[in-house]
């Protein structure tokens, strides 16, 4: 049953017929810059004047001021209160819950523990790392017990590894708390990892809705040039190795992929999960190939390197500063390493991802 329903929403940047999110669902809104994603979140939170109705748990909230809507919001820049400690940031978020002093202390400890920031309770925000700030901001957003949680690209300022780890943690907590969530990103990889449902927003309205498989793998969604697209490697299983791995023939290359227990004809790997080096790396040669740089493009602040591997091509994403460090040019020989645990066989069912 739908927990939040938006109908005929119109404002300067948004023109939306209908949007529904079910109770406990994590809906991801993807779209290019300027599509109206943040404007839509601001409308839902009550910060932007608009026409149309917003129903939250059968209750119409569009005429309520933001502080009465019970909608949590994790901003891109977090906005932790700098004059308060981590613990105080959480306590002030629980003010509207009218807890006794004892309950307040107990609940603060519980949430600090849940987000693994107990050791930071008496630190001020300017003493925290990027990842720690993110955890505290998430904890604060959850501390007020919102009916709906809005997140506006909260992991975009973090390095790839930290962002990936926090996404994983967030997804677990969101399911544990059964918290209806709308998550904005322009990263399809993030959308795939997090979203129960993905909505594509373009020019202020939702153009496509569905699971990652519906949107990308089955329909090959069009017009999504702003997104980091996964590498879909077509081929077939050559043989089972019996140690939880299979040999997958991809063009003229052989890949080792985890045995899914079912047959599959496609393997998915995200460009950001492929390692690229100008020199031959040491160590095992599993899923390591040599190729040449065919094309270089950009997405946001990242570089997409298209590598020709014999008959096959592969997209590899690196941060622009790393690309500069590598000093790579067109046609340069490179080594690519497809991390085993990031390769996932895809059959007809919806793909998940270990990365």
């Amino acid at each position: 049953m739908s927990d939040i329903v938006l109908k005929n929403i119109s404002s300067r940047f948004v023109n939306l017929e209908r949007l529904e999110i079910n109770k406990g669902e994590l809906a991801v809104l993807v779209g290019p810059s300027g599509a109206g994603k943040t404007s839509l979140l601001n409308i839902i939170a009550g910060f932007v004047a608009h026409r149309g109705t917003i129903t939250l748990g059968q209750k119409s909230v569009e005429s309520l001021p933001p502080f009465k809507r019970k909608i949590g919001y994790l901003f891109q820049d977090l906005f932790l209160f700098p004059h308060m400690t981590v613990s105080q940031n959480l306590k002030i978020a629980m003010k509207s819950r009218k807890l006794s002093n004892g309950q307040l202390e107990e609940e603060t400890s519980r949430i600090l523990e849940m987000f693994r920031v107990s050791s930071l309770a008496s630190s001020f925000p300017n003493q925290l790392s990027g990842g720690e700030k993110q955890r505290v901001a998430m904890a604060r957003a959850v501390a007020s017990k919102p009916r709906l949680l809005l997140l506006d690209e909260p992991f975009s300022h973090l390095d790839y590894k930290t962002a990936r780890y926090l996404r994983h943690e967030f997804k677990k907590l969101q399911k544990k708390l059964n918290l209806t969530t709308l998550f904005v990103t322009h990263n399809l990889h993030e959308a795939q990892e997090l979203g129960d449902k993905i909505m594509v927003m373009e020019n202020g309205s939702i153009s496509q809705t569905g699971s990652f498989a519906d949107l990308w793998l089955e329909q090959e969604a069009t017009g999504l040039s702003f997104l980091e697209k996964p590498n879909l490697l077509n081929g077939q299983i050559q043989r089972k190795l019996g140690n939880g791995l299979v040999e997958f023939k991809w063009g003229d290359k052989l890949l080792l992929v985890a045995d899914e227990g079912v047959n599959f004809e496609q393997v998915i790997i995200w460009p950001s999960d492929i390692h690229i080096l100008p020199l031959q790396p040491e160590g095992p040669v599993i899923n390591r190939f040599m190729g040449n740089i065919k094309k270089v493009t950009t997405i946001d602040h990242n570089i997409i390197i298209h590598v020709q591997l014999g008959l096959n091509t592969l997209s590899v994403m690196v941060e622009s500063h790393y690309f500069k460090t590598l000093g790579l040019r067109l046609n340069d020989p490179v080594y690519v390493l497809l991390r085993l645990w990031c390769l996932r066989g895809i059959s007809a069912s919806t793909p998940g991802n270990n990365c």
Partner: protein
Amino acid sequence: MIRVFYLALWICCLSIFGVLLSLAVQIDLLEIVATLIASETLFAVKLSLVASVSAVMIALILGIPTAYILARKDFPGKFIIDTFLDIPLVMTPLVIGMGLLFLLGPDLLGKYLSRFDIDFLFSSSGAIIAQTFIATPLIIRSCRSTFEEIDEKYDWAGYTIGLSNQQVFMRIILPMARNGILSGTILAWTRTLGEFGATLMVAGATRFRTETLPIAIYLNLTSGEIGIAITCAWVLIVSGFILMLTLKWLGYRSKATEF
């Protein structure tokens, strides 16, 4: 070219030093101590403190909400009102005092105030009103720029955790603006301590009645009592210097502990 700039710097410093030195050589230390504990000097110090502190408090009560509205809200005619509030900053205090004199006089507000036995003119309360008028625009300017520096999303973050407008202002914005408000307060206090023109027009210059430090300097200088005049001048110079030092220290501290 830098040498020329250094020359300009030295000329600025030397001119101030020259003024201070000329005040210092007029009176010896013993006379300063003697005049410092004179009843007239003590009265002037006390009245100056009471009037300036009261004026700054009233200016804060009026100025902080005004500054917040100007920084955060849009409304029709905001540009005109914003400029209008700056008028006291560009008016000479003498003209402000003259305006207040007529406003509080028997032909306008004074007519109604006298029914309640309230008379601000030629009394110490008149000095407070005149100084409030001088202090308020300074507080508004300083607080407004501080509020503008605080991203409005902090307000939003407060609302999304269920805090009301009042709670957001009192618990989040005001504490975050504390350094800016304190700087504005010190600036306004320094200015009101030395205020002369408007106070003279509204409160008059009566010994042991409306005698603030600048009024005491004026009264004693015109009657040839150089000792008290110079002592009062040194009280103003030293207190002003301490306040400005505090202001600069606050500026450095807020930079060092920038959020």
